[in-house]
Protein backbone atom coordinates (compact mmCIF):
# COMPACT_ATOMS: atom_id res chain seq x y z
CA UNK A 1 0.00 0.00 0.00
CA UNK A 2 2.80 2.38 0.77
CA UNK A 3 3.88 2.17 -2.85
CA UNK A 4 0.61 3.59 -4.14
CA UNK A 5 0.54 6.26 -1.49
CA UNK A 6 3.96 7.45 -2.50
CA UNK A 7 3.10 7.53 -6.19
CA UNK A 8 0.00 9.63 -5.74
CA UNK A 9 1.87 12.03 -3.51
CA UNK A 10 4.48 12.52 -6.22
CA UNK A 11 1.83 13.31 -8.79
CA UNK A 12 -0.18 15.71 -6.69
CA UNK A 13 2.65 17.90 -5.48
CA UNK A 14 4.88 18.27 -8.50
CA UNK A 15 7.10 20.87 -6.81
CA UNK A 16 8.01 18.38 -4.12
CA UNK A 17 8.74 15.68 -6.65
CA UNK A 18 12.13 14.33 -5.75
CA UNK A 19 12.16 10.95 -7.25
CA UNK A 20 11.78 8.36 -9.95
CA UNK A 21 8.26 6.95 -10.13
CA UNK A 22 9.88 3.58 -10.80
CA UNK A 23 12.00 3.41 -7.64
CA UNK A 24 9.65 1.81 -5.09
CA UNK A 25 11.32 3.02 -1.89
CA UNK A 26 9.48 4.57 1.02
CA UNK A 27 11.30 7.08 3.19
CA UNK A 28 11.43 4.49 5.94
CA UNK A 29 13.05 2.02 3.51
CA UNK A 30 15.72 4.54 2.59
CA UNK A 31 16.48 5.25 6.24
CA UNK A 32 16.71 1.58 7.12
CA UNK A 33 18.91 0.86 4.13
CA UNK A 34 21.26 3.74 4.91
CA UNK A 35 21.57 2.47 8.48
CA UNK A 36 22.42 -0.97 7.15
CA UNK A 37 25.25 0.39 5.03
CA UNK A 38 26.41 2.77 7.74
CA UNK A 39 25.87 5.94 5.76
CA UNK A 40 24.25 9.23 6.67
CA UNK A 41 23.05 9.99 3.18
CA UNK A 42 22.98 8.52 -0.30
CA UNK A 43 25.43 11.23 -1.43
CA UNK A 44 28.06 9.62 0.78
CA UNK A 45 27.94 6.46 -1.33
CA UNK A 46 29.24 8.21 -4.41
CA UNK A 47 33.01 7.93 -4.56
CA UNK A 48 33.27 10.74 -7.11
CA UNK A 49 35.90 13.51 -6.77
CA UNK A 50 34.38 16.98 -6.31
CA UNK A 51 36.15 18.27 -9.38
CA UNK A 52 34.05 16.09 -11.67
CA UNK A 53 30.77 16.15 -9.77
CA UNK A 54 27.84 17.56 -11.67
CA UNK A 55 25.67 20.04 -9.79
CA UNK A 56 23.80 21.49 -12.74
CA UNK A 57 20.42 20.79 -14.23
CA UNK A 58 19.51 19.10 -17.51
CA UNK A 59 16.48 21.30 -17.85
CA UNK A 60 14.21 18.33 -18.44
CA UNK A 61 10.97 18.71 -16.56
CA UNK A 62 9.38 15.59 -15.15
CA UNK A 63 5.86 14.88 -16.34
CA UNK A 64 3.08 12.47 -15.57
CA UNK A 65 2.50 9.49 -17.84
CA UNK A 66 -0.62 11.17 -19.22
CA UNK A 67 1.28 14.35 -20.02
CA UNK A 68 4.14 12.53 -21.71
CA UNK A 69 1.84 10.40 -23.85
CA UNK A 70 -0.17 13.46 -24.90
CA UNK A 71 2.90 15.46 -25.72
CA UNK A 72 4.73 12.75 -27.68
CA UNK A 73 1.61 11.77 -29.61
CA UNK A 74 0.98 15.42 -30.40
CA UNK A 75 4.52 15.77 -31.73
CA UNK A 76 4.18 12.60 -33.79
CA UNK A 77 1.05 14.18 -35.21
CA UNK A 78 3.30 16.64 -37.00
CA UNK A 79 4.21 13.81 -39.36
CA UNK A 80 2.16 14.32 -42.50
CA UNK A 81 -0.43 11.68 -42.84
CA UNK A 82 -0.06 9.94 -46.18
CA UNK A 83 -0.67 6.55 -47.72
CA UNK A 84 2.78 5.26 -48.50
CA UNK A 85 3.57 3.56 -51.77
CA UNK A 86 7.21 3.40 -50.68
CA UNK A 87 9.57 0.46 -50.77
CA UNK A 88 13.17 0.29 -51.99
CA UNK A 89 14.31 -2.19 -49.37
CA UNK A 90 11.87 -1.26 -46.59
CA UNK A 91 8.44 -2.88 -46.88
CA UNK A 92 5.13 -2.79 -45.07
CA UNK A 93 2.75 -5.73 -44.88
CA UNK A 94 -0.28 -6.14 -42.69
CA UNK A 95 0.82 -7.50 -39.31
CA UNK A 96 -1.83 -9.70 -37.67
CA UNK A 97 -3.03 -8.53 -34.28
CA UNK A 98 -1.88 -11.76 -32.69
CA UNK A 99 1.74 -10.76 -33.26
CA UNK A 100 1.44 -7.72 -30.97
CA UNK A 101 -0.50 -9.56 -28.33
CA UNK A 102 1.91 -12.46 -28.07
CA UNK A 103 5.18 -10.57 -28.51
CA UNK A 104 4.12 -8.01 -25.90
CA UNK A 105 3.77 -10.66 -23.20
CA UNK A 106 6.17 -9.29 -20.65
CA UNK A 107 7.90 -12.64 -20.06
CA UNK A 108 9.23 -12.18 -23.61
CA UNK A 109 9.47 -8.40 -23.82
CA UNK A 110 11.23 -7.79 -20.51
CA UNK A 111 13.74 -10.63 -20.62
CA UNK A 112 17.44 -10.32 -21.31
CA UNK A 113 19.66 -12.38 -23.59
CA UNK A 114 19.35 -16.06 -22.66
CA UNK A 115 22.49 -16.41 -20.56
CA UNK A 116 20.59 -18.73 -18.17
CA UNK A 117 18.96 -21.12 -20.63
CA UNK A 118 17.13 -23.21 -18.02
CA UNK A 119 14.84 -20.28 -17.16
CA UNK A 120 14.52 -18.86 -20.70
CA UNK A 121 13.51 -21.91 -22.71
CA UNK A 122 10.52 -20.12 -24.17
CA UNK A 123 12.47 -17.41 -25.95
CA UNK A 124 15.20 -19.82 -26.95
CA UNK A 125 12.67 -22.11 -28.59
CA UNK A 126 11.07 -19.17 -30.41
CA UNK A 127 14.48 -18.11 -31.72
CA UNK A 128 15.26 -21.71 -32.71
CA UNK A 129 12.01 -21.72 -34.67
CA UNK A 130 12.96 -18.39 -36.27
CA UNK A 131 16.31 -19.87 -37.35
CA UNK A 132 14.46 -22.92 -38.68
CA UNK A 133 12.12 -20.73 -40.73
CA UNK A 134 15.11 -19.09 -42.40
CA UNK A 135 16.80 -22.42 -43.00
CA UNK A 136 13.65 -23.64 -44.76
CA UNK A 137 13.29 -20.46 -46.80
CA UNK A 138 16.94 -20.17 -47.87
CA UNK A 139 17.80 -23.85 -48.17
CA UNK A 140 21.07 -23.07 -46.37
CA UNK A 141 21.98 -25.00 -43.22
CA UNK A 142 22.67 -22.16 -40.79
CA UNK A 143 20.79 -19.00 -39.82
CA UNK A 144 21.65 -16.82 -36.85
CA UNK A 145 19.07 -15.27 -34.57
CA UNK A 146 19.56 -11.76 -35.97
CA UNK A 147 21.66 -8.84 -37.15
CA UNK A 148 20.55 -5.20 -36.83
CA UNK A 149 19.36 -4.77 -40.42
CA UNK A 150 20.11 -5.72 -44.02
CA UNK A 151 22.88 -3.14 -44.37
CA UNK A 152 24.84 -4.31 -41.32
CA UNK A 153 24.21 -7.95 -42.29
CA UNK A 154 25.82 -7.21 -45.65
CA UNK A 155 28.78 -5.68 -43.83
CA UNK A 156 29.06 -8.82 -41.70
CA UNK A 157 29.03 -11.10 -44.75
CA UNK A 158 31.86 -9.08 -46.24
CA UNK A 159 34.04 -9.48 -43.16
CA UNK A 160 33.11 -13.19 -43.04
CA UNK A 161 34.48 -13.57 -46.56
CA UNK A 162 37.72 -12.15 -45.23
CA UNK A 163 37.94 -14.72 -42.43
CA UNK A 164 36.78 -17.79 -44.34
CA UNK A 165 39.85 -19.81 -45.21
CA UNK A 166 38.53 -20.98 -48.55
CA UNK A 167 37.82 -17.44 -49.77
CA UNK A 168 40.60 -15.32 -51.21
CA UNK A 169 40.74 -11.84 -52.68
CA UNK A 170 40.27 -8.22 -51.68
CA UNK A 171 37.38 -7.03 -53.85
CA UNK A 172 33.72 -6.96 -52.88
CA UNK A 173 31.39 -6.57 -55.87
CA UNK A 174 27.97 -5.00 -55.34
CA UNK A 175 25.31 -4.02 -57.88
CA UNK A 176 25.34 -0.45 -59.16
CA UNK A 177 21.66 -0.24 -58.16
CA UNK A 178 22.41 -0.94 -54.49
CA UNK A 179 20.81 1.50 -52.04
CA UNK A 180 23.31 4.19 -51.06
CA UNK A 181 22.71 3.48 -47.37
CA UNK A 182 23.62 -0.19 -47.72
CA UNK A 183 26.74 0.70 -49.66
CA UNK A 184 27.75 3.31 -47.07
CA UNK A 185 27.35 0.88 -44.16
CA UNK A 186 29.26 -1.79 -46.06
CA UNK A 187 32.13 0.65 -46.65
CA UNK A 188 32.40 1.22 -42.89
CA UNK A 189 32.31 -2.49 -42.06
CA UNK A 190 35.15 -3.29 -44.47
CA UNK A 191 37.09 -0.15 -43.52
CA UNK A 192 39.13 -2.08 -40.97
CA UNK A 193 40.13 -4.74 -43.52
CA UNK A 194 41.94 -4.81 -46.85
CA UNK A 195 38.63 -5.24 -48.69
CA UNK A 196 37.54 -2.67 -51.27
CA UNK A 197 33.95 -2.26 -52.44
CA UNK A 198 33.34 -1.96 -56.18
CA UNK A 199 30.25 -1.88 -58.38
CA UNK A 200 29.34 -4.16 -61.24
CA UNK A 201 26.95 -2.95 -63.94
CA UNK A 202 23.32 -4.11 -63.96
CA UNK A 203 20.13 -3.26 -65.82
CA UNK A 204 18.28 -1.54 -62.96
CA UNK A 205 19.68 -4.11 -60.57
CA UNK A 206 19.14 -7.14 -62.81
CA UNK A 207 22.36 -9.05 -63.33
CA UNK A 208 23.64 -9.98 -66.76
CA UNK A 209 26.04 -12.87 -66.11
CA UNK A 210 28.25 -11.77 -69.01
CA UNK A 211 28.70 -8.30 -67.53
CA UNK A 212 29.37 -9.81 -64.13
CA UNK A 213 31.95 -12.15 -65.65
CA UNK A 214 33.77 -9.15 -67.09
CA UNK A 215 33.99 -7.64 -63.62
CA UNK A 216 35.32 -10.85 -62.06
CA UNK A 217 38.94 -11.73 -61.50
CA UNK A 218 41.03 -13.77 -59.07
CA UNK A 219 40.94 -10.93 -56.58
CA UNK A 220 37.17 -11.00 -56.00
CA UNK A 221 36.21 -12.27 -52.54
CA UNK A 222 32.46 -11.59 -52.50
CA UNK A 223 29.71 -10.99 -55.03
CA UNK A 224 26.43 -9.59 -53.75
CA UNK A 225 23.22 -9.91 -55.75
CA UNK A 226 19.74 -8.80 -54.66
CA UNK A 227 16.59 -10.72 -55.53
CA UNK A 228 14.23 -8.94 -55.85
CA UNK A 229 16.22 -5.86 -56.71
CA UNK A 230 15.88 -2.44 -55.07
CA UNK A 231 13.96 -1.52 -58.20
CA UNK A 232 11.41 -4.30 -57.69
CA UNK A 233 12.55 -6.79 -60.31
CA UNK A 234 12.97 -10.54 -59.98
CA UNK A 235 16.34 -11.79 -61.20
CA UNK A 236 15.92 -14.15 -64.16
CA UNK A 237 19.47 -15.47 -64.66
CA UNK A 238 20.53 -16.45 -61.16
CA UNK A 239 21.40 -19.98 -62.14
CA UNK A 240 24.00 -18.70 -64.59
CA UNK A 241 25.32 -16.33 -61.92
CA UNK A 242 25.59 -19.25 -59.51
CA UNK A 243 27.52 -21.30 -62.04
CA UNK A 244 29.82 -18.39 -62.69
CA UNK A 245 30.54 -18.03 -58.97
CA UNK A 246 30.73 -21.72 -58.21
CA UNK A 247 34.48 -21.51 -57.67
CA UNK A 248 35.25 -22.09 -54.01
CA UNK A 249 37.23 -18.96 -53.45
CA UNK A 250 34.38 -16.50 -54.19
CA UNK A 251 31.55 -16.06 -51.72
CA UNK A 252 28.17 -15.62 -53.43
CA UNK A 253 25.74 -13.69 -51.22
CA UNK A 254 22.12 -13.13 -52.11
CA UNK A 255 20.00 -10.32 -50.66
CA UNK A 256 16.32 -11.13 -50.16
CA UNK A 257 13.53 -11.29 -47.57
CA UNK A 258 11.30 -14.00 -46.09
CA UNK A 259 8.24 -13.19 -48.19
CA UNK A 260 10.13 -13.18 -51.50
CA UNK A 261 11.92 -16.36 -50.46
CA UNK A 262 8.58 -18.12 -49.95
CA UNK A 263 7.98 -17.92 -53.70
CA UNK A 264 11.30 -17.44 -55.47
CA UNK A 265 14.05 -19.95 -56.21
CA UNK A 266 15.80 -21.00 -53.04
CA UNK A 267 19.23 -19.41 -52.69
CA UNK A 268 20.72 -22.87 -52.09
CA UNK A 269 19.41 -24.13 -55.43
CA UNK A 270 21.22 -21.41 -57.36
CA UNK A 271 24.47 -21.88 -55.47
CA UNK A 272 24.37 -19.01 -52.99
CA UNK A 273 26.77 -19.36 -50.06
CA UNK A 274 25.01 -16.82 -47.87
CA UNK A 275 21.78 -14.84 -47.69
CA UNK A 276 21.21 -11.50 -46.00
CA UNK A 277 18.25 -9.17 -46.01
CA UNK A 278 15.50 -7.54 -44.00
CA UNK A 279 13.38 -10.11 -42.19
CA UNK A 280 11.13 -7.52 -40.54
CA UNK A 281 8.91 -7.50 -43.64
CA UNK A 282 7.18 -10.10 -41.49
CA UNK A 283 6.25 -8.93 -38.03
CA UNK A 284 7.13 -5.26 -37.99
CA UNK A 285 7.07 -3.33 -41.25
CA UNK A 286 9.06 -0.22 -42.05
CA UNK A 287 8.95 1.47 -38.58
CA UNK A 288 11.21 4.30 -39.78
CA UNK A 289 13.94 1.76 -40.40
CA UNK A 290 13.78 -0.30 -37.19
CA UNK A 291 14.52 -3.60 -38.77
CA UNK A 292 15.77 -7.17 -38.49
CA UNK A 293 18.88 -8.32 -40.29
CA UNK A 294 18.50 -11.76 -41.83
CA UNK A 295 21.69 -13.79 -41.92
CA UNK A 296 22.03 -17.33 -43.25
CA UNK A 297 24.91 -19.28 -44.74
CA UNK A 298 26.26 -22.69 -45.62
CA UNK A 299 27.43 -24.93 -42.81
CA UNK A 300 31.05 -24.68 -43.93
CA UNK A 301 31.10 -21.09 -42.64
CA UNK A 302 29.52 -21.96 -39.28
CA UNK A 303 32.59 -21.08 -37.21
CA UNK A 304 32.75 -17.67 -38.88
CA UNK A 305 29.10 -16.73 -38.34
CA UNK A 306 28.58 -13.42 -36.51
CA UNK A 307 26.04 -13.05 -33.71
CA UNK A 308 24.05 -15.48 -31.66
CA UNK A 309 23.05 -19.02 -32.50
CA UNK A 310 20.53 -21.16 -30.65
CA UNK A 311 21.14 -24.89 -30.65
CA UNK A 312 19.24 -27.90 -29.42
CA UNK A 313 20.62 -29.98 -26.60
CA UNK A 314 19.32 -31.99 -23.68
CA UNK A 315 18.88 -31.26 -20.02
CA UNK A 316 19.93 -33.46 -17.13
CA UNK A 317 16.67 -35.37 -17.19
CA UNK A 318 17.20 -36.20 -20.86
CA UNK A 319 14.55 -33.85 -22.25
CA UNK A 320 15.21 -31.67 -25.25
CA UNK A 321 16.28 -28.15 -24.34
CA UNK A 322 17.72 -25.16 -26.15
CA UNK A 323 20.73 -23.00 -25.45
CA UNK A 324 22.87 -20.29 -27.00
CA UNK A 325 25.74 -22.18 -28.52
CA UNK A 326 29.13 -21.83 -30.22
CA UNK A 327 29.64 -18.74 -28.09
CA UNK A 328 33.39 -18.87 -28.48
CA UNK A 329 32.87 -17.04 -31.80
CA UNK A 330 31.51 -14.07 -29.89
CA UNK A 331 33.03 -10.95 -28.40
CA UNK A 332 32.55 -11.84 -24.72
CA UNK A 333 34.92 -14.77 -25.14
CA UNK A 334 37.07 -14.16 -28.19
CA UNK A 335 37.28 -10.37 -27.75
CA UNK A 336 39.38 -8.75 -30.53
CA UNK A 337 39.33 -11.99 -32.51
CA UNK A 338 35.57 -12.42 -32.36
CA UNK A 339 33.64 -12.90 -35.59
CA UNK A 340 31.84 -9.61 -34.86
CA UNK A 341 31.36 -7.11 -32.05
CA UNK A 342 27.58 -7.66 -32.04
CA UNK A 343 26.07 -8.35 -28.63
CA UNK A 344 22.57 -6.89 -28.27
CA UNK A 345 20.73 -7.82 -31.48
CA UNK A 346 17.10 -7.65 -32.65
CA UNK A 347 15.76 -10.72 -30.82
CA UNK A 348 12.30 -9.33 -30.10
CA UNK A 349 11.79 -8.44 -33.77
CA UNK A 350 12.84 -12.00 -34.66
CA UNK A 351 10.17 -13.25 -32.26
CA UNK A 352 7.60 -11.10 -34.07
CA UNK A 353 8.76 -12.40 -37.44
CA UNK A 354 8.48 -16.00 -36.25
CA UNK A 355 4.96 -15.43 -34.92
CA UNK A 356 3.84 -13.70 -38.10
CA UNK A 357 5.15 -16.58 -40.20
CA UNK A 358 3.44 -19.08 -37.90
CA UNK A 359 0.11 -17.28 -38.25
CA UNK A 360 0.39 -17.28 -42.03
CA UNK A 361 1.62 -20.84 -42.40
CA UNK A 362 2.98 -22.04 -45.76
CA UNK A 363 -0.21 -21.30 -47.72
CA UNK A 364 -0.58 -17.84 -46.24
CA UNK A 365 3.04 -16.98 -46.89
CA UNK A 366 2.89 -18.20 -50.46
CA UNK A 367 -0.36 -16.34 -51.12
CA UNK A 368 1.16 -13.16 -49.75
CA UNK A 369 4.20 -13.57 -51.98
CA UNK A 370 2.00 -14.14 -55.03
CA UNK A 371 0.12 -10.94 -54.20
CA UNK A 372 3.47 -9.17 -54.14
CA UNK A 373 3.88 -10.14 -57.78
CA UNK A 374 0.30 -9.53 -58.95
CA UNK A 375 -0.36 -6.18 -57.29
CA UNK A 376 2.48 -4.23 -58.95
CA UNK A 377 1.71 -5.80 -62.33
CA UNK A 378 -1.89 -4.63 -62.08
CA UNK A 379 -1.03 -1.16 -60.81
CA UNK A 380 1.71 -0.69 -63.40
CA UNK A 381 -0.72 -1.59 -66.15
CA UNK A 382 -3.19 0.99 -64.85
CA UNK A 383 -0.56 3.71 -64.56
CA UNK A 384 0.74 2.87 -68.04
CA UNK A 385 -2.69 3.76 -69.39
CA UNK A 386 -2.36 7.33 -68.06
CA UNK A 387 -1.14 9.81 -70.59
CA UNK A 388 2.32 11.01 -69.64
CA UNK A 389 3.16 7.85 -67.69
CA UNK A 390 5.04 4.86 -69.03
CA UNK A 391 5.07 1.89 -66.70
CA UNK A 392 6.25 -1.03 -68.79
CA UNK A 393 5.03 -4.16 -67.09
CA UNK A 394 7.03 -6.33 -69.46
CA UNK A 395 10.49 -4.97 -68.60
CA UNK A 396 10.81 -7.85 -66.19
CA UNK A 397 9.01 -9.74 -63.46
CA UNK A 398 8.02 -7.48 -60.62
CA UNK A 399 7.86 -8.00 -56.90
CA UNK A 400 6.07 -5.38 -54.79
CA UNK A 401 7.27 -2.42 -56.85
CA UNK A 402 8.12 -0.99 -60.24
CA UNK A 403 9.50 2.11 -61.88
CA UNK A 404 7.57 4.37 -64.18
CA UNK A 405 8.73 7.11 -66.51
CA UNK A 406 6.79 10.32 -66.18
CA UNK A 407 6.64 13.82 -67.54
CA UNK A 408 6.88 16.56 -66.43
CA UNK A 409 9.33 16.72 -63.54
CA UNK A 410 9.08 13.63 -61.30
CA UNK A 411 9.99 15.51 -58.12
CA UNK A 412 7.20 17.96 -58.78
CA UNK A 413 4.75 15.14 -59.40
CA UNK A 414 5.80 13.44 -56.18
CA UNK A 415 5.32 16.56 -54.07
CA UNK A 416 1.94 17.21 -55.66
CA UNK A 417 0.96 13.65 -54.83
CA UNK A 418 2.04 14.30 -51.23
CA UNK A 419 -0.44 17.14 -51.14
CA UNK A 420 -3.07 14.61 -52.21
CA UNK A 421 -2.03 12.25 -49.40
CA UNK A 422 0.15 9.78 -51.33
CA UNK A 423 3.86 9.09 -50.90
CA UNK A 424 5.84 7.63 -53.83
CA UNK A 425 9.57 7.67 -54.62
CA UNK A 426 11.10 10.18 -57.01
CA UNK A 427 14.14 8.45 -58.52
CA UNK A 428 15.38 11.05 -60.98
CA UNK A 429 14.00 13.82 -63.16
CA UNK A 430 11.64 11.54 -65.06
CA UNK A 431 11.32 8.38 -62.97
CA UNK A 432 9.12 7.47 -60.05
CA UNK A 433 9.01 4.19 -58.13
CA UNK A 434 5.81 2.77 -56.70
CA UNK A 435 5.49 -0.02 -54.15
CA UNK A 436 2.19 -1.80 -53.60
CA UNK A 437 1.47 -4.59 -51.12
CA UNK A 438 -1.41 -5.93 -49.04
CA UNK A 439 -0.82 -2.95 -46.73
CA UNK A 440 -1.80 -0.23 -49.21
CA UNK A 441 -3.51 -1.94 -52.17
CA UNK A 442 -6.90 -0.71 -50.94
CA UNK A 443 -5.80 2.82 -51.87
CA UNK A 444 -4.22 1.93 -55.23
CA UNK A 445 -7.23 3.00 -57.28
CA UNK A 446 -7.15 6.41 -55.55
CA UNK A 447 -3.46 6.73 -56.35
CA UNK A 448 -4.23 6.13 -60.02
CA UNK A 449 -6.90 8.82 -59.89
CA UNK A 450 -4.58 11.24 -58.11
CA UNK A 451 -1.78 10.74 -60.64
CA UNK A 452 -4.25 11.14 -63.49
CA UNK A 453 -5.54 14.41 -62.01
CA UNK A 454 -2.12 15.84 -61.20
CA UNK A 455 -0.88 15.17 -64.72
CA UNK A 456 -4.06 16.38 -66.31
Amino acid at each position, binding site marked *: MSYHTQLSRTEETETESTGSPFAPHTEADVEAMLRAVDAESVEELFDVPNSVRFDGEFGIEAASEREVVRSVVETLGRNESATEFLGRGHYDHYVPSLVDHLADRSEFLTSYTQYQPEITQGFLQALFEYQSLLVELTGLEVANCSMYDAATALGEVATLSRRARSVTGDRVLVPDALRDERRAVLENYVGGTALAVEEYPTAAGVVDPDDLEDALDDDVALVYVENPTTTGLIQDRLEAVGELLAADDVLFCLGSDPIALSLLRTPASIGADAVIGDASVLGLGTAYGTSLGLFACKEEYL*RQVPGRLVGASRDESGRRAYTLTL*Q*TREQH*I*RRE*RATSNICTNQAWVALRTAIHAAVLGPDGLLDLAKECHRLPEVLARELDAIEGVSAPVRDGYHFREFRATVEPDATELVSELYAEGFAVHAIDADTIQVCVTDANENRAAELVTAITEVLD
Partner: protein
Amino acid sequence: MDFEIPTELRYAESHEWADERTDAVRVGVSDFAQDELGDIVFVELPAEGAELGAGEEFGVLESIKAVSDIYAPVAGTVVAANEAVVDSPELVNEDPYGDGWLIEVEPAGDLEHLLDASAYEETI
Protein backbone atom coordinates in the same frame (compact mmCIF):
# COMPACT_ATOMS: atom_id res chain seq x y z
CA MET B 1 45.47 -32.55 -8.55
CA ASP B 2 47.87 -34.95 -10.22
CA PHE B 3 48.45 -34.64 -13.90
CA GLU B 4 50.00 -37.24 -16.09
CA ILE B 5 53.36 -36.06 -17.49
CA PRO B 6 55.02 -38.87 -19.46
CA THR B 7 58.79 -38.72 -19.01
CA GLU B 8 59.54 -39.76 -22.59
CA LEU B 9 58.06 -36.54 -24.03
CA ARG B 10 59.35 -32.95 -24.20
CA TYR B 11 57.19 -29.97 -23.30
CA ALA B 12 56.74 -26.30 -24.14
CA GLU B 13 55.84 -23.81 -21.41
CA SER B 14 52.67 -23.15 -23.39
CA HIS B 15 51.66 -26.75 -22.55
CA GLU B 16 52.23 -28.55 -25.84
CA TRP B 17 54.15 -31.83 -25.87
CA ALA B 18 56.42 -33.15 -28.61
CA ASP B 19 57.31 -36.79 -29.22
CA GLU B 20 60.31 -37.46 -31.41
CA ARG B 21 60.13 -41.23 -31.18
CA THR B 22 57.89 -41.35 -34.24
CA ASP B 23 59.21 -40.72 -37.78
CA ALA B 24 57.97 -37.18 -37.67
CA VAL B 25 57.58 -35.27 -34.41
CA ARG B 26 54.10 -35.81 -33.02
CA VAL B 27 52.53 -32.85 -31.18
CA GLY B 28 49.66 -32.56 -28.72
CA VAL B 29 48.66 -30.72 -25.55
CA SER B 30 49.36 -31.86 -22.02
CA ASP B 31 46.97 -33.43 -19.55
CA PHE B 32 47.18 -30.22 -17.53
CA ALA B 33 46.19 -28.13 -20.57
CA GLN B 34 43.15 -30.24 -21.44
CA ASP B 35 42.01 -30.09 -17.83
CA GLU B 36 42.38 -26.30 -17.71
CA LEU B 37 40.31 -25.91 -20.86
CA GLY B 38 37.52 -28.22 -19.80
CA ASP B 39 35.38 -30.11 -22.28
CA ILE B 40 36.87 -29.41 -25.68
CA VAL B 41 34.20 -28.95 -28.34
CA PHE B 42 36.16 -27.84 -31.39
CA VAL B 43 39.62 -28.34 -32.77
CA GLU B 44 41.09 -26.37 -35.65
CA LEU B 45 44.29 -27.73 -37.21
CA PRO B 46 46.51 -26.61 -40.06
CA ALA B 47 46.51 -28.24 -43.48
CA GLU B 48 49.21 -30.72 -44.39
CA GLY B 49 52.19 -28.97 -45.89
CA ALA B 50 51.87 -25.88 -43.70
CA GLU B 51 55.23 -24.45 -42.63
CA LEU B 52 55.49 -23.63 -38.93
CA GLY B 53 58.07 -21.62 -37.04
CA ALA B 54 58.99 -22.64 -33.48
CA GLY B 55 56.45 -21.06 -31.12
CA GLU B 56 54.14 -20.16 -34.00
CA GLU B 57 50.42 -20.52 -33.48
CA PHE B 58 49.17 -23.49 -35.51
CA GLY B 59 45.64 -24.12 -34.38
CA VAL B 60 42.87 -23.55 -31.89
CA LEU B 61 41.21 -25.56 -29.14
CA GLU B 62 37.79 -24.42 -28.01
CA SER B 63 35.80 -25.36 -24.96
CA ILE B 64 32.38 -23.94 -24.13
CA LYS B 65 33.71 -20.83 -22.46
CA ALA B 66 37.30 -20.48 -23.67
CA VAL B 67 39.43 -20.41 -26.77
CA SER B 68 43.06 -21.39 -26.65
CA ASP B 69 45.69 -21.01 -29.33
CA ILE B 70 48.12 -23.87 -29.72
CA TYR B 71 51.75 -23.22 -30.57
CA ALA B 72 54.26 -25.28 -32.48
CA PRO B 73 56.85 -26.58 -29.99
CA VAL B 74 59.21 -27.15 -32.89
CA ALA B 75 59.69 -25.58 -36.33
CA GLY B 76 58.90 -27.68 -39.37
CA THR B 77 56.42 -28.82 -41.98
CA VAL B 78 53.08 -30.33 -41.06
CA VAL B 79 52.96 -33.85 -42.49
CA ALA B 80 49.75 -35.03 -40.78
CA ALA B 81 46.81 -33.53 -38.91
CA ASN B 82 44.73 -35.82 -36.69
CA GLU B 83 41.33 -35.91 -38.39
CA ALA B 84 39.96 -38.01 -35.52
CA VAL B 85 40.16 -35.11 -33.05
CA VAL B 86 38.49 -32.77 -35.52
CA ASP B 87 35.53 -35.16 -35.66
CA SER B 88 35.65 -36.07 -31.96
CA PRO B 89 37.21 -33.22 -29.99
CA GLU B 90 36.61 -35.12 -26.75
CA LEU B 91 39.62 -37.32 -27.63
CA VAL B 92 41.85 -34.44 -26.50
CA ASN B 93 40.25 -34.63 -23.05
CA GLU B 94 40.11 -38.39 -22.86
CA ASP B 95 43.54 -39.29 -24.18
CA PRO B 96 45.74 -36.22 -24.62
CA TYR B 97 48.94 -38.19 -25.14
CA GLY B 98 47.41 -40.93 -27.25
CA ASP B 99 44.45 -40.70 -29.62
CA GLY B 100 44.14 -37.01 -28.80
CA TRP B 101 47.39 -36.04 -30.59
CA LEU B 102 47.04 -33.05 -32.93
CA ILE B 103 49.66 -32.89 -35.69
CA GLU B 104 52.87 -34.47 -36.93
CA VAL B 105 55.69 -32.25 -38.04
CA GLU B 106 58.77 -32.93 -40.15
CA PRO B 107 61.08 -30.93 -37.88
CA ALA B 108 63.42 -28.24 -39.15
CA GLY B 109 65.41 -28.23 -35.92
CA ASP B 110 65.90 -30.22 -32.73
CA LEU B 111 63.87 -30.28 -29.50
CA GLU B 112 66.68 -29.18 -27.21
CA HIS B 113 64.93 -25.94 -26.25
CA LEU B 114 61.95 -27.83 -24.82
CA LEU B 115 61.48 -28.85 -21.17
CA ASP B 116 61.76 -32.36 -19.88
CA ALA B 117 58.97 -33.82 -17.77
CA SER B 118 60.32 -32.73 -14.41
CA ALA B 119 61.08 -29.20 -15.57
CA TYR B 120 57.59 -28.94 -17.08
CA GLU B 121 56.01 -30.25 -13.89
CA GLU B 122 57.56 -27.35 -12.02
CA THR B 123 55.87 -24.84 -14.29
CA ILE B 124 52.34 -26.03 -13.55
